[in-house]
């Protein structure tokens, strides 16, 4: 009896199996990469040219975020401080520390310190710091507890879904305006964040945009 299947078909099941395995592996690895916080850079913690310690400056010395990030309440962009801001104190304090050599060099030469960027929205996203911090959204909502970080890292995913979680339910994040830069603030005992947030949503007429044009222009 003639063979129904040609000779090459002997290898066919194995070929199919290999293909399916490759597809399955790539789908699984793709998913596990692109759909996890790793892709959104959570945990990204580059080495900075000068080892600035937020926990020391904020938690121990009690400096306000806005001492350095001066534009955060006025501008879309929250600026990184200029060398001058560092040197306001560090001409007196730790003026010879080796950790500050990059800052001193910058002050001497006039070349800026090339701080490594951690949080970056894509070019087609127009995020505005001023409108968030002026309407009761704390720094901690997006940047995590920077005041406890010795070296700053990317704490939250900053994906569109994550943005919309808050834009759809702002009451989960609103706090009194004078507590916006107090990253350790907790709702007073006896109240919940939700109660306080709902009160502010109503009183301040908070309606965050959820349409495309809110962020994409």
């Amino acid at each position, binding site marked *: 009896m003639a063979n129904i299947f040609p000779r090459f078909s002997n290898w066919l099941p194995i070929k199919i199996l290999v293909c399916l395995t490759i597809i399955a592996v790539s789908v699984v690895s793709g998913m596990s990469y692109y759909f996890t916080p790793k892709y959104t850079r959570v945990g990204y913690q*580059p080495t900075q040219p000068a080892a600035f310690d937020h926990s020391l400056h904020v938690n121990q010395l009690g400096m306000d975020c806005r001492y350095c990030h001066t534009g955060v309440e006025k501008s879309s962009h929250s*600026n990184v401080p200029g*060398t*001058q801001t560092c040197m306001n104190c560090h001409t007196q304090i730790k003026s010879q520390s080796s950790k500050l050599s990059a800052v001193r060099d910058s002050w001497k030469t006039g070349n*800026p310190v090339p701080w490594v960027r951690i949080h970056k929205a894509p070019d087609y996203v*127009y995020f505005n710091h001023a409108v968030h911090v002026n309407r009761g959204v704390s720094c901690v909502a997006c940047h995590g507890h920077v005041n406890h970080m010795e070296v700053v890292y990317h704490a939250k995913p900053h994906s569109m879904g994550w943005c919309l979680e808050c834009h759809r339910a702002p009451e989960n994040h609103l706090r009194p305006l004078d507590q916006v830069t107090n990253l350790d603030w907790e709702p007073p005992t006896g109240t919940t964040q939700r109660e306080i947030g709902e009160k502010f949503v109503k009183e*301040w007429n908070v309606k965050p945009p959820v349409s495309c044009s809110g962020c994409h222009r």
Partner: protein
Amino acid sequence: MKRTLSHPSPAPNGRTYWRSLGEYSRTPDFEEWLHREFPAGAAEWENDPLSRRNFLRLMGASLALAGLSLSGCRRPEAHLVPFTQSPEWVIPGKKMSFATAQPRRRGAVPLLATTFDGRPIKMEGNPLHPLSLGASDNFSQASILDLYDPARRQHPTRSGKKISSSDWDAEIARIRYESASTAGSSLAILSDELLSPTRDRLRAELLKQFPQATWATYEPLAPEKDLEASSLVFGDNTEFRPNLSAASTILSLDCDFLGSDEGDISDTRGFAAGRRTRKPGDSTNRLYVAEPRFSLTGTMADHRLRLRSGSMGPFLLELARQIRTAKPSADLNTLLSQSPDLALPEGVDPAWIRECAADLVAHGKQSLILVGRRLPVSLQALVLALNAALGAVGSTLIVQPRRSIPSSNINQLAGKIRSGAIRTLIILGGDPVYNAPADLNWPALQSSVPNTIHLAHLPNATSKQSTWSIPGTHYLESWGDALASDGSYLSIQPMIQPLWDGQSQLDLLSKLLGQPKPIGPRLIRDTFAQRTNLSGEKFDLAWNDFVREGFLSSPTSTLPPRAPNLSSVAGLLSKIENSAPEDICSLEFNFIQSGAVDDGRYANNGWMQEWPDPMTKLTWDNAILMSQDTAKSLGLKNEIIKGILVADVVQATLAGRSVEAPALIVPGHANFSVSLPLGYGQEELGSVAKGSGFNAYSLRTSLADYQGAGLQLKKLGKTRELAVTQEHQVMEGRDLVREATVSEFQKDPAWVKTVGMDAHIPKNQSFYPNPKLDGQHQWAMVVDLSTCTGCNACVTACTAENNIPIVGKDQVMKGREMHWIRVDRYFTGEPDAPESVSQPIACMQCENAPCETVCPVNATVHNEEGLNVMAYNRCIGTRYCANNCPYKVRRFNFFDYNQRALDKLYWGPLAPKGTEETIKLQKNPNVTVRMRGVMEKCTFCVQRIEDAKITARVRARDSADLKIPKGTLKTACQQACPAEAIVFGDLLDESSEVTQQRALPQNYSLLEYLNVRPRLTYLGRIRNPNPAMPGAKTSYNTPHGHGESHAETTHTNQESSSHKSEGTHK
């Protein structure tokens, strides 16, 4: 019930609107072109050897290769680079506005420059200055791109070689030494016209140091004939300007005051103010126009007469006689006693002139006669005298002290050069090698001077021929001052350090004077101190105000009304002649300013090259404009082949000089007369200017400077493809523009609803659920067609604001221009003497947007505030939305226009990728720069809306008051519009201008029967014809009878009854 929706047959109102001669005659080529959704080839790669199939194969392979390495997955490390020392006031990411001004030959434009992080990105009018009140025009909008032009020279050169600053210092010292020994007789300076008091001061100082030096001024498009006429009639050192806001009857004789050549922003504003008719009973001004070429002013005319400029003389004399008949006066008798008796040109109805004169006389000092500054002095002087006779002087015609200093002209300078006296020639700005009168043979003349120095913003033909070529600064890079057209004193402050090693004219002059390099505004401060006579603290306060507000707030100087010197005019009148023979072998020519490139200075500006001329809709080229009859006599044709306008090329010969140029047939042009736009054909200027148009300067001589007769045209048998946008995105005759006379409007204020299908549409239902419109604002826009002049300032402003790329001539010919707002220009009536209407079309932001329902990826959706928003990063480029858009307002990025050289678009990955660094600086950081394969369209400037909302919220903090203060939110087109024809605002605000205008009875939306519910609506155009005029239209509409059935299928209303009504004139 099944409903078949067909578009109504064209023109149920009895009027046909057409946009081109092809459409008028409905040639088969045009029909085919029209019925394609996109122009032929718009979706093809026809110039490319790579077929679609091969392309897909290649892409598949490269995708597979890309998959092997995951290099594209990681984000690159980015840096945040703060200031070392923060400058005062600067908040990174926040825009700042500074007052400045753009110098122009006729008077500077007061402006506000928007800067982002130290780089100017957008110009707006200065809202404080009465001439602008926030409005601007095409050239001031486009001038920002000139700052960042990659063709700018970076270093001074000598004979093409880079030189150091010490070489330059040595050269200046040498010139000073040489000039001192000759008292300056060997030194000549040829400058452009800046109207800068500081430059005038330095000039006076220079002439004091070197008394024998020659200072000549040359501006190719600034005839001084108006100044001459003014000094004859009103006395020495006077000039005049119109005050159109006071005028209710205007006659314009070849004076395009609504275009950019003759008038300025305030003229358009003043005219629009008199034109605006909101409710029956409002007064409407009336405009008569007699002109050779259909100009923007002609489109606004209630009565337009096409008249060769050579026939203006007999026309004017007849007008003067008719004015004398209507208002007898001894002055006019003496004036006309010596005038020749010329026959009226053929085709001019004496009744036209009679009734026009009667109307002018009836309105006395509210009437105004304007005359083109290019016309002979005798005619201009006569018009000034007539204005005086009408009582217009001091009311609609303002006489003011002359602003410019008289100096020698280029012919006198040429004489001196020929005599060999000039050893050093310094050319400040301008490009005489390109645009000097051809009879001077300037290139040879300039070469005969041993030492020439050229200071200019862009390296041009003159720089190339000069020994020393010094890069000049842009007006946004240097301190300066200038006079506006009303004589007010404006400050020019720099927005950015000079990008390259450039210097300003003031720097060069002060160096030449042996003064130290001026630091900051020192020179301007000195002039300011002289003008204000202030010192000490008072000076500082006044100076700060001057710089902050951009101008010196003092009453502008007008001269008291004075009796015209009629005897000097009477002597001139004998020279008036009919200089326009009707001879096809000796045509009349008019050298005109190009609306796009001015006298040629914007020829390397991509925005202006791609700017469709308001009347011809021609881009990237100029052409000899002529009427249908003239073209027929010469055997010339314009054909549409595969959707591209192919024009016959002619050889134009004038007094032995000739040039090859395409001939473009335009409706409404006078017969036996042609117009030649100047400014094109510059091969030396840069990659943008290269290859566009022909150089009309090569025909122009000192005598044949603006108009005359004797031009010969010879058909060459060659053709040239022209990129004309007038047929792109055609909507056919569906009652898109609606017009009525004042009397029709008074009879039925809601006349727009009786036009077309509007009276017949049944209550419509939408198949899709309406979007939820529950936002805190509901945005809408209204455009008033009565005041829109069609000047295109909105197009340029939108281009600047929204990072709209230019696509180049080839792409425009395929219908791929990217302008988000276009101005449709319709003609109506006979092609020889049509009327014209302009209609700006942007995205209508339909509430039931047809584009949204077909997008497979939800890239275009509705937001809660009624905007049809576009998420570029979601768009996958199916172009379904553009196919489904009834208004054809969506634009597709067929190529990466921002990243690729326009002449290498088809090279694909073989061409270098990237934008010029300087061009990047211009981009608005708040608008995405779109890439290839993405659909885009007008968003009502959503970035401005969001910015205004954010500002309101930042201000509100913990209160609920989120109101956006009135006047703080304007779209770019609205802000630029000098006629204030565009209003934009919130429909939920009862008091907003847009709510009130939408409630007006003359408000209508385009294609209402489609039930897409546009948020952009129009106010029907109201014309004000004089019923006594010959051929006056009394009715623009044939209203629908309501007795017939409201047919749901194709509407065929042939009703012929018409309102016969008389126009009234307030």
